Each structure stands twice: as structure tokens, then as C-alpha cells.
């Protein structure tokens, strides 16, 4: 066992990279905020926008 260099063996679902999860969660939040900013502030905020007659 020592020869292989493996100290602990865990199953697929026991692998728990919490730091990576935090990073992708942050990435998701950034994407969402950037989309909301681009659409609602930069695009819709530049009134007037050509519209159909409602």
C-alpha cells in the first residue's frame, strides 16, 4: 500500500472541491449581473428605443 503513494482512497461522490464550487458560483453571479446590467441599464436605459405601437 505504501508503494502506490495513495494515502486515502475516496469514491467519486466523496470528492468535494468546495473552493472550485465557490469559484463557479461567483462566476455565475458575475455573469448574471453583467447580463442584467447590459440589458436593463445599457440597452433599455438608452431611451428612447424604437417600439411597436402598444
Amino acid at each position, binding site marked *: 500500500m505504501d508503494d502506490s503513494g495513495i494515502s486515502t482512497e475516496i469514491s467519486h461522490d466523496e470528492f468535494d472541491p468546495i473552493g472550485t464550487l465557490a469559484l*463557479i458560483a461567483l462566476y*455565475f453571479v458575475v455573469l448574471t449581473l453583467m*447580463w442584467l446590467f447590459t440589458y*436593463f441599464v445599457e440597452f433599455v436605459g*438608452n431611451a428612447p428605443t*424604437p417600439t411597436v405601437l402598444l
Partner: protein
Amino acid sequence: MNIHAYERLWLVASMVLIVGFIVTITYGTVGLGITMVDDREETISPDDVDEDDRFQDPRVEQVGENEFEAYVVSMTFLFQPDPIEIPANNEVTFYVTSRDVIHSFTVVGTNTNTMVIPGEVSAMTVEFDEPGEYGVVCNEYCGPGHHDMEGSLIVHPEDEYSLTELSVDAPDQVGPGEDVELTISIQNGLLEDLETTVDVEVGDETLEQDVTVPGGETEQVSVTVDGDDLEPGDAEWSASVDDEVETGTVTIGDDADDGGDEP
């Protein structure tokens, strides 16, 4: 297949993101009524722009209560009319076409922006809430003067907006002691009646006359200044209605009186 829980989470989140994008675009279209400029307008030959009712005289016209239409022609390297004057808080539909090459009609700082293609008429309906002066630029490279191609759009407060045009028929010369008669035509482009005052000045004489011009019509006003009140020689005249002013000169007395250098 064994997919890790976090990876499954990220897959679901990216699906939510895509659905979110589609939902916002749908909200913009259905909820806010945002539309794309398309080719629904009839085509027009660029050579016939001058014969088209809309474009032979580029202008702003009232077509209904709170509804205006602006006909704009773009060409190297200008926009007509310049400036374009519209009222705030009214629906204005811009019809823009080109006489020569591809241009764009971009009202700076707004989404009022379209490509202008010779042969096509770009139509956009917008409502400006903020009075002020906006720049109009071309953002499609159209030739060596492209960077100078600009126009302006003036949005007037709704209650100060008028489509009044003034023309004056005045004599160039009258005999000594003769009356000076100015015929002033006031054209009211709005659908509402225009109640206003004509101010006339000939030499040192000033006259005022109230006038009501029905919507969409032209009214003529004649103003006569007594010739005995005027000094012989050249007299400046001006006629004004609201912000419109016309000026000119009338010579009082015989040519020989102020001439002398004539061959």
C-alpha cells in the same frame, strides 16, 4: 454515466442562464414593445427620392393627436432636414432613406438607431420624454466626408412646439408718401388651431395683429403702414410670429432720390 454533483449543478445553472436570456428578450419585446427595424416598408428607387411625396420635401408632419411623422433623407454627407424638430412626449415615426450609399441614422446616446440603405425606407417609432438637443450621426462608413456627416434633432417641450411657417409678400419700392402693405402668410402645420399675434415693424413703426390659423391651413394677414409716417429712403421691415421672423428692405421714394450714381 457518473456525473459529479457539482458538475450537475453547473449544467443546470447554465441552462437557467440561457432560459433567463430568452426570458429577458421576450420581456423586452412583449412587455416593453421593443421592436427591430425591418424591411416592412415599400422599397423606393434612390433615383426617385425627389419624386416621392414623403421625401421630396424632408420635413416633420403631424398625422394625428400626439402622432408625428418625420421624413428624413440622408446623403453624402448630410441629413435633411437639419435640424429635425419634434415635440417631446409624442409618438414620432422616422422614415429614413438614402439617395446614394449606405448610411446610418443614429441619435447619439439613444437606441434610436438604424441603418439607411438606398432603396429601402427604415421606419422607427419613438417617443422622446426629455426635451433637448440630440446629435445625429452616420455610423456606416460612407466616403471621405463620413466623419463630418452629422445632423441634429431638437426635441421641444410639448407646449412650445409649433409647425408654423411664415412668408411675407412686401413691395421692394413705394412712391413717396405711399402706404406700405405687407401680406403675411402664416401656415399652421399642427392639427390644432394656432392663436397668435403677428408683430410687424417697418422703419420705426410697429404694428400688432391677432390672428387665428386653423389647423393644417394657411391664413393671410395684410398690414398697412401709413406712408406719411415713414421717412424717405431704405426702411427695414420685419414680420414675426412666435419664433419665426422674416425681414427685408423697402425703398421709400423715387429711385432718383437715393441713387445718383446710376449710369
